Every structure is written in C-alpha cells, then in structure tokens.
C-alpha cells in the first residue's frame, strides 16, 4: 500500500491530470493528506487544497519537465555547426541560382523572349499613345501606372512608419529641449566654409532637380530622381544653417499639406484615367505635341506631384532621424 503511494507521482493519471492543471494534480488533496500522515514527524505542513486552487504548490510532473526541456538548448549546443550550416545554405542558394543563370537566354541578344510584342508596342506607338519622348517615363506613368501608384504609396507608408517610430510628442517641451541638446552634440555650428559652399551649391542643385522633374518626359530622369536631388539639396542647406533657418519655411504642417495634395492629386487623376480607360470613355486630357515641355497629358503634373512627395519624404526622413521634429 505504501509502495503504491510512493509510486503515485510517477503514475500515468497523475501526470495527465497535472498536465491539464498546468503542473498540478487533481488528486493532490488525497496525496497531501496521506503525505501528511506519513511525513508527520518531518513536520512538513502542507495546507490541503481544492483541485482547482493549486497555484502555490511546487510544479512537478510531466508537463513541467516537458516545459523546461528547450529546443533552444539543443540549438545552442549545435551553434558551432549552425554558423557553418547557414553559410552552406547561402552558398547552396547562390549555386542553384548560378546554375539556373547558365541555362537562361544569352545577354544582349535581340532574339530573347523579353523582346516581344509588349516592348515593340511601347517603342513604336509610345509617342502617339502617351506623348512622352522618354519611353521609360511613358511606360511607368501611363502604361503601367498602377505599379507606380503603388510605389509612391510605398514611400508614403515608409514615411508614416518612420514618423511612428521617431516623431517626438510635440506637447512635451522637455523632451524637445533634450532632443535639441542631443542633436547639437555632433553638429558643426556656423561653419563658415560649409556655409559659403552651401550658398554656392544649393541653387544649382535645386535648379538641376527642377530641371530633371520638368523634363522627365523628354530626357532621362523624372519625378523620383528629381525629388531625391531636391531633397538632398534641402538636407545640405539644413546641415549648413541649422534648424532655425529651415524651420521657418519647412514645417510638419507644410509636409502634411504637400504630401496630401500631391498624393491626393495623384490618386484622383489616375483614378480618372483608369476609370475612363476601363469603361472605354474618351479622356479629355490633351496629349500636346511630343517634344514640347507642355505635352504628354498627365505625365508632367504627375512627375511634379511625385517630385514634391519624394523631396518632402527625403527631407522628412533626415529630420526625423536627427531630431524627431521639424523645428
């Protein structure tokens, strides 16, 4: 009888019930009482408990031992091999890709499957259908405009995520001051050489950026690259003259207004064009003469919208990274 009692903790039913109860037994009550009798002289005083009310009892049993058995432990033991294994996986991936590359069509061959009727129409009828001399711009802003709509929203999403992570709460004056001090730790202030060079460089940078945006449909470039150039110019200006000067004209409010107007215009105008296209309606937007600056329908305004969004976003990234605020 007593032997049976000692074995009870190892029995199947005990383990199952203790597992269901997260490490405790249904039958603890009886056991404790029996233990109480057996171990009375050892004066261990265990309070009898109901089957459901067993939080304080030490955890034992199948569930517990299982819970503490960790996969990570095995992994740690094999960590030496794990690094080698990962490198092998990477090499394997590269190897497979290289093997498949060797089976692909040859580089620079005009007979390749990619040079099919799709690119033919883009090249041969692109000018008549989109009005853009630069076929790539015509393609991304007219033929495949849905991708580009998604792309500008990727940029917007990234901007919002950075805001969520780094924007400081503007109501809290103390954190703002701290951020200011933190930012000044590493900033060159009123560096004459930097300021003179910036005065010389920033206007040409802006003009080049605007040129690239406005000529997106005529020459290489477009909204995105021009916007990035203007954004880089703004960042340079900020670095030379500090937040006090840029904060006067470039605020969070301006950023919000520009991005909502530009993206809203983008969505609405493209929706109009998609809608008329899908319903086979005539679009009233004129194409103009190819080669002129005012031509190619919606492409020029869209380029300007994208350029503004990109410039603001790039500057916004930089400002958020440095300080978490615009002023």
């Amino acid at each position, binding site marked *: 009888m007593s032997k049976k009692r000692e074995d009870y903790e190892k029995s199947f039913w005990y383990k199952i019930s203790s597992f269901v109860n997260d490490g405790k037994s249904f039958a603890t009550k009886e056991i404790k009482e029996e233990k109480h009798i057996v171990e009375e002289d050892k004066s261990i005083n265990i309070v009898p408990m109901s089957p459901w009310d067993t939080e304080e009892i030490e955890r034992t049993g199948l569930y517990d031992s299982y819970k503490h058995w960790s996969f990570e432990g095995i992994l740690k033991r094999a960590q030496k091999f794990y690094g080698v294994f990962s490198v092998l996986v990477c090499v394997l991936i590269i190897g497979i890709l290289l093997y498949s590359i060797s089976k692909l069509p040859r580089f620079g061959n005009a007979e390749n499957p990619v040079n099919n009727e799709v690119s033919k129409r883009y090249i041969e009828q692109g000018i008549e259908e989109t009005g853009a001399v630069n076929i790539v711009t015509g393609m991304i802003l007219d033929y495949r405009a849905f991708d580009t709509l998604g792309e500008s929203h990727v940029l917007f999403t990234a901007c919002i995520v950075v805001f969520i992570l780094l924007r400081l709460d503007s109501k809290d004056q103390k954190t703002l001051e701290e951020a200011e001090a933190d930012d000044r730790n590493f900033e060159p202030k009123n560096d004459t050489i930097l300021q003179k060079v910036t005065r010389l460089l920033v206007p040409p940078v802006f003009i080049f950026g605007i040129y690239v945006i406005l000529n997106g449909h005529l020459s290489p470039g477009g909204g995105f*690259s021009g916007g990035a150039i203007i954004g*880089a110019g703004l960042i340079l200006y900020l670095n030379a003259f500090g937040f006090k000067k840029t904060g006067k004209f470039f605020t969070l409010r301006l950023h919000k207004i520009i991005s909502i107007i530009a993206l809203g215009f983008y969505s609405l105008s493209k929706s109009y064009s998609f809608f008329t296209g899908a319903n086979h309606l005539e679009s009233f937007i004129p194409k103009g003469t190819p080669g002129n600056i005012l031509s190619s329908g919606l492409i020029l305004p869209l380029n300007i919208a994208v350029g503004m969004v990109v410039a603001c976003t790039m500057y916004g990234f930089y400002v958020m990274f440095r300080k978490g605020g615009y002023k």
Partner: protein
Amino acid sequence: MSFLMPVLLLFLIVCAVFVAFTKNPLSAIIIYMAFSLIMSIIWALMQSPDLAITEAAVGAGVTSILMFVALKKIHAIDVKETKEGKEDKDNE
C-alpha cells in the same frame, strides 16, 4: 565598353566582398557609396540613363546620407550616455 564592363563588374564584386568583411560600419557605408557609384556607371553603360541618375541620386546620395545620420545619431546617444555617467560620478 567591351573591356570596361568586366572591370567594373569586378569592382562591384570586390566592393561587395569588402562591405561584407569590414568590421567598422562607417567604412562599410563609404564602400557602399562606391558600390552605388559603380552601379550607376554600369547602368549608364547599359543604356539606361534613367536608372543611372536615380541610382546616383538615391543609392550614393540619400541612402548613404541616411545611413551616416543614423550612425551619427548612435554616436550622439553614446556621447550623451557617457556625459551623464560622468556627471553622476562627479556628483558622487
């Protein structure tokens, strides 16, 4: 073109390998800038001027600036921490 291209491609691989094995993040960023510029030249040679402009403005320009400012921010956090630590010590 015919001889320039393989040389540039070789540079590209060399830059990539050096980025992977450089310990210092700052040097890694600078090598990455060089990588972007080489990429931009390759694209110009491959008759894609749009890509060349964009890569030069974005890869070598904005992305690298963002990486630099992130690194600087990290150093600024470090400096601030050590300053505060020193002040605490002085007070003691």
